């Protein structure tokens, strides 16, 4: 199954099996990142359907059991090493820009404008 792993303005398309563990997925992501980050420096979040909050994913969890399905989006954060302390980044994925600024209700209006001009 295909998963979209997002962090800031980047989306990584990662193929995974439903029976894979979160740990295995992190290893794959680490590989895609050219080992810039070790799996233990990665943290994944999932937004279960019908919920607004994000659930952190444990390494041992199996994707299928967590409820992750094909084409789902997961959120990625890095561990920031700050000397002795360190912390996880906050999930920060900006929304895409809308396709059209004057869409939805005014879409039909836009089409008529052209005719009215004539």
């Amino acid at each position, binding site marked *: 199954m*295909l998963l979209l792993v997002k962090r800031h303005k980047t*989306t990584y*398309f990662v193929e995974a099996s439903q029976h894979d563990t979160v740990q295995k997925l992190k*290893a794959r992501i680490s590989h895609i990142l050219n080992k810039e980050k070790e799996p233990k420096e990665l943290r994944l979040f999932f937004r279960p359907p019908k919920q607004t909050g994000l659930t952190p994913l444990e390494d041992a969890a199996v994707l299928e059991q967590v409820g992750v399905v094909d*084409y789902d989006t997961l959120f990625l954060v890095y561990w920031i090493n700050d000397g002795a302390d360190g912390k996880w980044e906050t999930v920060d994925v900006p929304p*895409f820009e809308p396709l059209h600024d004057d869409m939805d209700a005014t879409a039909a209006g836009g089409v008529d404008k052209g005719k009215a001009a004539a």
Partner: protein
Amino acid sequence: MADETAVSETVKLVSADGFEFVIDRKCAMASGTIKNMLSSPGQFTESLQNEIQFRDIKAVILERVCKYLYYKVRYTNVVQEIPEFVIEPEVALELLMAADFLDC
């Protein structure tokens, strides 16, 4: 063993609004245009860094294109029933233009 072969080289596609999409090189090649951009014999930035900027394609559309490229590769040469690739009307027009440009 399966892990090593599953994670092949990746390609980065950048949308007009600065969003990046990292996909499998194999899936990127499913687009004729991207394939040509990456295989050009010259020393273009694209072929060197495996990164392509699409100044005319927005993130919403480019994300859908990437999903389609995976769908295409996954179901190529599959004879059983293939699930429909759903396209909402709002994105259909721009998606069509992008698909035409990308030859996929």
